[in-house]
């Protein structure tokens, strides 16, 4: 155990557990926890789907149906077309991001102790969405789907035409401006999409760490830090759900925009 200073404490909590994988390095913590949460989330949903009945639903089925209808209503409000893919896409995004964000509720130091002494993994982080890799993976996947649906809805030529001729006009002198504008738009989408979620979750984690550091200074710090941590955790419930919801809505909005003709 190295000497515990504020710097080493923060560093300890914010460093990733890295592992060599396929000739590169991989964040084992983010990958393992996100996969685990994704599997658990989908398994819970699948549990309701397996026994789905059109008659009187069970309690779990009713709860999952509530979630499905909520997601479907939200998606319908921005994308009134065929939702057989966009619906499950938004549902997956919402459930997965919500579960990953919710990992932030676990107390940072207890989890660090658990990872280190029970699982023998040091520098293991609980919150996959506080890793920019995870949020970028999601945002870039949505971005790829956006390009795919743009081309599917307008045709390759139509998409390229829009790239050069929208939004200012199809005059050849405006092509460069149109393209520049569209590139900025296309780049800004996944960036803002992923960094918004990442920033919120990362900041939330940092605040917990700072309060934890204060708690290490003495009794007054321990009491006040504990109280503030509780308050922050309660406020964080809102952030966790809100960020998952925003991420889902933006996913649906971007896919819907891909279908729009200029």
């Amino acid at each position, binding site marked *: 155990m190295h000497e515990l200073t504020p710097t080493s404490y923060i560093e300890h909590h914010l460093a990733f557990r890295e592992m060599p*994988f396929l000739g590169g*390095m991989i964040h084992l913590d983010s990958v393992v926890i996100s996969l685990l949460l994704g599997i658990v989330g989908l398994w819970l949903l699948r549990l309701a789907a397996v026994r789905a009945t059109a008659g009187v*639903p069970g309690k779990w089925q009713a709860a999952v149906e509530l979630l499905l209808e909520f997601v479907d209503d939200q998606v319908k409000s921005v994308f009134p077309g065929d939702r057989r893919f966009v619906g499950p896409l938004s549902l997956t995004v919402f459930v997965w991001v919500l579960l990953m964000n919710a990992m932030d509720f676990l107390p940072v130091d207890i989890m660090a102790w658990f990872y280190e002494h029970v699982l023998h993994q040091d520098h293991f982080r609980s919150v996959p969405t506080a890793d920019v890799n995870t949020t970028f993976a999601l945002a870039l996947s949505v971005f790829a789907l956006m390009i795919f649906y743009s081309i599917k809805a307008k045709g390759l030529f139509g998409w390229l035409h829009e790239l050069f001729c929208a939004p200012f006009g199809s005059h050849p002198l405006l092509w460069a401006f149109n393209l520049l504008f569209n590139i900025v738009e296309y780049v800004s989408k996944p960036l803002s999409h992923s960094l918004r979620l990442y920033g919120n979750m990362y900041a939330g984690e940092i605040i917990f760490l700072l309060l934890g550091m204060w708690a290490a200074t003495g009794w007054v710090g321990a009491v006040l830090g504990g109280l503030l941590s509780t308050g922050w955790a309660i406020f964080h419930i809102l952030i966790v759900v809100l960020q998952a919801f925003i991420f889902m809505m933006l996913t649906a909005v971007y896919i819907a925009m891909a279908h729009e003709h200029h």
Partner: protein
Amino acid sequence: MNIGLTLVSQAVAFFLFVWFAAKFVWPPLMRAIETRQKQMAEGLAAAEKGRVELQQAARRSDEELKGARDRAQDIIAQAEKRAAEIVDEARTAARSEGERLVAGAQAEIEQSVSRARETLRDEVAALAVAGAEQILRREVDRTAHAELLAQLRRDL
């Protein structure tokens, strides 16, 4: 910080999850929800139809009841009329029968009286003839005095 393989693996996992949700989670639950919605809509429509039919049936039964009541009133009125008629007829029949009986009795009485009178007359006549015979001490020739005797009987 190490962007790259982590991102790729997360993206692959994401697509697998979406595929799973789109294939095994979304369709069965949506189908269940939509089927239930349809069933509920049908149930509500059937209930509405039943309500309307119930109203119609109630109206029809009211009408039937009113008709039946009217008919019953008619029948009662007719029955009362008929009863009065029967009573009248019976009264008339009884009166005429009584009158007939009284007339028969009177006729019989009159017959009896006249018969008694005839008998009396005959007997008086016979007595008179017997008296006359006694007086005359001879037999009255009935043939010779038939007219006289008849005259006598008439006068009695």
